[in-house]
């Protein structure tokens, strides 16, 4: 950006973070401006224009601002900087590197560079002189932690270019020129390892977006087994407070099979971010054995940061994800919580005195959410490689009501729905994902089904359906028992109910704080599901309903110990023997 400062205006009004500005110069919608308050320059974005009145949302506190303060328009939209060195960083919603601030407080008007200008990167060319390239093609790569970070032809380059020269393998800084491109008009471009892109505009430099077909493993049994998330898919987790949204998201962030994890804390508690950056540098990625922080980027917009930056934070996360996807990587975005972003939109809409939609949210909420979720996906790049963005957002429905506008709008956009139930949370049945209300549309995809056949077992889908049915029926039997009383129903109702409880306790419930139980690889999930279904297929002989509950509690107890034990260890096998012994006590083959 070259600061020409030719376009200016003057503040004419202030309501919280909405600033009105009068300007005679041409100004674009979503253009970025700086409002001068004393020595400070406060960042703002144009969100509405009426004649010469320009409405700007200010990303910082407007305290002390006065009518007549000078405003400088930049001519650019809100952009972020893309290049090697983003992994392990903790950014605010506008991509300032928070660790570069040395003061205790984030002072107003303070910004810091997203990348480290002085770091040296070992660049290896992937293209050669004379190659014809276009935007997003790979010129070379550097190793960023364990990730092969491809250096791309900048997205803003339009048309085809020929590589006139490219540097040899060696150490370079991000600002060093690594290639010179030239087009048929002899227009020359010097390319380094950094580029900029406006966050509200999707990066679409791929040849095809495909239907997701592969499962994204999370190690969380209720998700992988019953309601699988697809690589390149979308999902959302609505739940009242206290039902364990954050714990579930953290578990997924730790365990998911992805190359890059972007954790966007959007209007959330600061202590939760502290949790992530305290824990992740200590924990290891179970798939690569490297530190978790090495593959993680945190976008931290805590709930007490200015509201406008909250909206920007989810777009910043998505844009960074699209950049890494263009390198052929598997990216997972976890956004907590998208409701806060919708509320930020509502606050602005309210100050703009727009006519409100349902619950005072802006009318275009559904469209905004749908467009955003649509930026995820599994894509094939121009060079035949593939990359993906899987998006999993939480929603915080007000009053726990799943009919509220944000949940409804998200339900239309996302393909997996993980309903957290207050009832399960009250019973401390965590993760509190309701197995009957939640769904994954990906299970219906033929390409996903054949993937599961091939990678898990040919009987897998059948078994999963069976487990689901047993859970639904177990719930019906429970209701019957509650209505008619323990001895008012046939003994078999108790048996059916307790068989469903076995699935609930052993497959659905999982201790996120236990070193072994926290993460279950898919091979172990296959084993456990099979074991549990075998038990539900058995016939037992009981004298009374009291015997039923006592007996199944013993089975559940041993199976739980099994979940806490290292898979296929000696202890595991001895617990297994104990289980067989209990089963044989009552089993009539």
């Amino acid at each position, binding site marked *: 950006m070259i600061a020409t400062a030719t376009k200016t205006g003057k503040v004419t009004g202030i309501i919280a973070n909405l600033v009105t500005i009068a300007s005679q110069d041409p100004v674009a919608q979503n253009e970025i401006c700086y409002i001068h308050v004393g020595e400070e320059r406060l960042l703002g974005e144009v969100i509405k224009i009426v004649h010469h009145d320009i409405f700007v949302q200010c990303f910082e506190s407007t305290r002390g601002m006065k009518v007549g303060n000078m405003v400088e328009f930049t001519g650019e939209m809100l952009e972020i900087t893309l290049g090697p060195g983003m992994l392990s960083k903790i950014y605010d919603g506008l991509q300032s590197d928070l660790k570069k*601030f040395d003061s205790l407080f984030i002072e107003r008007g303070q910004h810091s560079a997203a990348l480290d200008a002085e770091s040296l990167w070992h660049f290896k060319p992937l293209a050669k002189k004379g190659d014809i390239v276009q935007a997003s093609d790979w010129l070379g790569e550097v190793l960023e932690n364990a990730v092969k970070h491809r250096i791309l032809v900048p997205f803003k380059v339009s048309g085809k270019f020929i590589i006139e020269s490219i540097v040899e393998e060696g150490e370079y800084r991000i600002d060093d020129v690594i290639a010179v491109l030239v087009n048929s008009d002899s227009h020359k471009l010097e390319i380094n390892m950094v580029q900029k892109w406006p966050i509200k505009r999707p990066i679409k430099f791929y040849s095809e977006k495909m239907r997701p077909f592969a499962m994204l493993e999370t190690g969380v049994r209720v998700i992988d087994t019953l309601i699988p998330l697809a690589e390149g898919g979308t999902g959302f987790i609505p739940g009242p407070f206290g039902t364990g949204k954050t714990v579930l998201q953290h578990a997924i962030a730790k365990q998911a099979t992805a190359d890059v994890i972007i954790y966007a804390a959007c209007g959330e508690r600061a202590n939760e971010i502290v949790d992530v950056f305290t824990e992740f540098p200590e924990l290891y990625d179970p798939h690569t054995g490297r530190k978790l922080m090495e593959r993680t980027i945190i976008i931290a917009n805590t709930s007490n940061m200015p509201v406008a930056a909250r909206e920007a934070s989810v777009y910043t996360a998505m844009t960074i994800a699209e950049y890494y996807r263009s390198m052929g990587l598997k990216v997972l975005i976890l956004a907590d919580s998208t409701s806060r972003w919708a509320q930020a939109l509502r606050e602005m809409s*309210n100050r703009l005195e727009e006519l409100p939609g349902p619950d005072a949210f802006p009318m275009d909420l559904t469209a905004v959410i749908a467009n955003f979720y649509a930026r995820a996906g599994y894509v094939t790049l121009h060079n035949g490689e593939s990359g993906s963005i899987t998006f999993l957002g939480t929603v915080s429905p007000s009053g726990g009501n799943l009919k509220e506008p944000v949940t409804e709008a998200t339900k239309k956009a996302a393909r997996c729905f993980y309903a957290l139930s207050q009832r399960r949370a009250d019973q401390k049945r965590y993760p509190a994902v309701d197995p009957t209300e939640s769904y994954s549309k990906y299970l219906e995809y033929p390409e996903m089904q054949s993937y599961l056949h091939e990678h898990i077992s040919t009987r897998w889908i059948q078994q999963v359906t069976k487990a689901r049915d047993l859970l639904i029926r177990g719930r019906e039997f429970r209701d019957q028992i509650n209505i008619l009383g323990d001895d008012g129903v046939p003994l078999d109702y108790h048996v059916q109910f307790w068989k469903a409880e076995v699935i609930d306790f052993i497959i659905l419930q999982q201790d996120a704080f236990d070193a072994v139980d926290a993460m279950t690889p898919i091979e172990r999930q296959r084993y456990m599901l099979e074991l549990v279904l075998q038990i539900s297929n058995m016939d037992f002989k009981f004298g009374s309903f009291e015997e039923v509950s006592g007996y199944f509690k013993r089975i559940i107890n041993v199976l739980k110990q099994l979940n806490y034990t290292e898979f296929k260890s000696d202890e595991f096998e001895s617990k297994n023997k104990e289980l067989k012994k209990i089963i044989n006590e009552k089993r009539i083959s």
Partner: protein
Amino acid sequence: MEYKAFQKIFYKVNRINKATCVLQSHMASYDEMAVVHGRLAQVVKIIGNNVTLQVFSGTDGIPTNAEVMFTGNPPLLKVSTELAGRFFNAYGKPIDGGPEVEGENRPLGGPTVNPTQRKRPSELIPTGIAGIDLNNTIVTGQKIPFFADPEQPYNQVMADVALRAKADRIILGGIGLTHDDYLFYKNVFENAGALDRIVSFINTTEDPSIERLLIPDMALTAAEYFAIDRNEKVLVLLTDVALYCDALSIVSNNMDQISSKDNMPASLYSDLARLYEKAVQFPQGGSITIIAVTTLSGGDITHAIPDNTGYITEGQLFLRRDSEIGKTIVDPFRSLSRLKQLVIGKKTREDHPQVMNAAVRLYSDAANARTKQENGFDLSDYDKRCLRYAKEYSEKLLAIDVNIDIDKMLDTSWELFGRYFKKEEVSIKEELMNKYWNDKS
């Protein structure tokens, strides 16, 4: 708050309603304090030359030719160690008859702490109340409210917690406190000989309601001074935050804003987060812990105030009257401390997490048994044992008059398990079972 007047001008006041007035000026800056007809006010909106002022003590008697002074400053509090042991009103003026405090002026509602400068909370705050320490352990740097119906003894519980918490400094923000409750706190603190550790900012129901908007910011600005400048462990008590929200809605209504759910302003989440996020643990040792009270109407937690609060705070504590034992208990189902995972089993005995979960699960089985009983069904032997267990659990552990240390709470739980249940019914990790199972009782 004391401001040097540098500009004394008479303005034409165009519009006056209950909480705000609008006047013509080109001098005003956003958020600054002004004095209107001798009363403190704050700039909340500027449109061209029209400046909207929120008048804290109400607009009654303000004439259209009122004398208005702009101070050029945001709301301020003078901070120093002289704050200790004193009682102030919403403007930071002494109400205890003592002298004005000398010190440095600090603006209220300062900037956000850089998240990377925070430390993960890891120090537990023992309160002696098992419903809290055992099931919902509170940690320094945490923010947690009591959700309580107005008739429940939340002020007594808060006072107990405050005195047992071993904090270096306790800051009480009384938002619309009844005069009786104000005297209650004053007496309890005085009798405990703790007055010199305590700073109070009090707005009673006798004071104008808009003034309440200043109380939390005053309390938290003082808290930041003690936690940062003096490296102290600070405990902030805010009661009752629901009345703060009511004041917000009055102002927003007077400014003709479209309200969202339950007539609350659309910005309620941000407004509350701005306060509660001041809770922090610093690496240097200082910390701010916030314990608040949000009163409910008829136990309804889906109302916008408790709902938004629950999404911001790190858990919530529910008080409930247990008619069977005739005491108030901390409800184990609806209460939650999100930060307890950071300390239980780490700073407390290894069996803490599992004992806590098993005890609550069995208590929940007792609740099911009670439903069965009420519906006239026969109870199984297990149901009957659950009910007996629940009564004792409630009496010995959940009741708010319990005051024991955490090891004793765990021992008591094992004792109850052994008395009423078989090993497999308790279902705890085997190695812990072997070590702590107690069937002698």
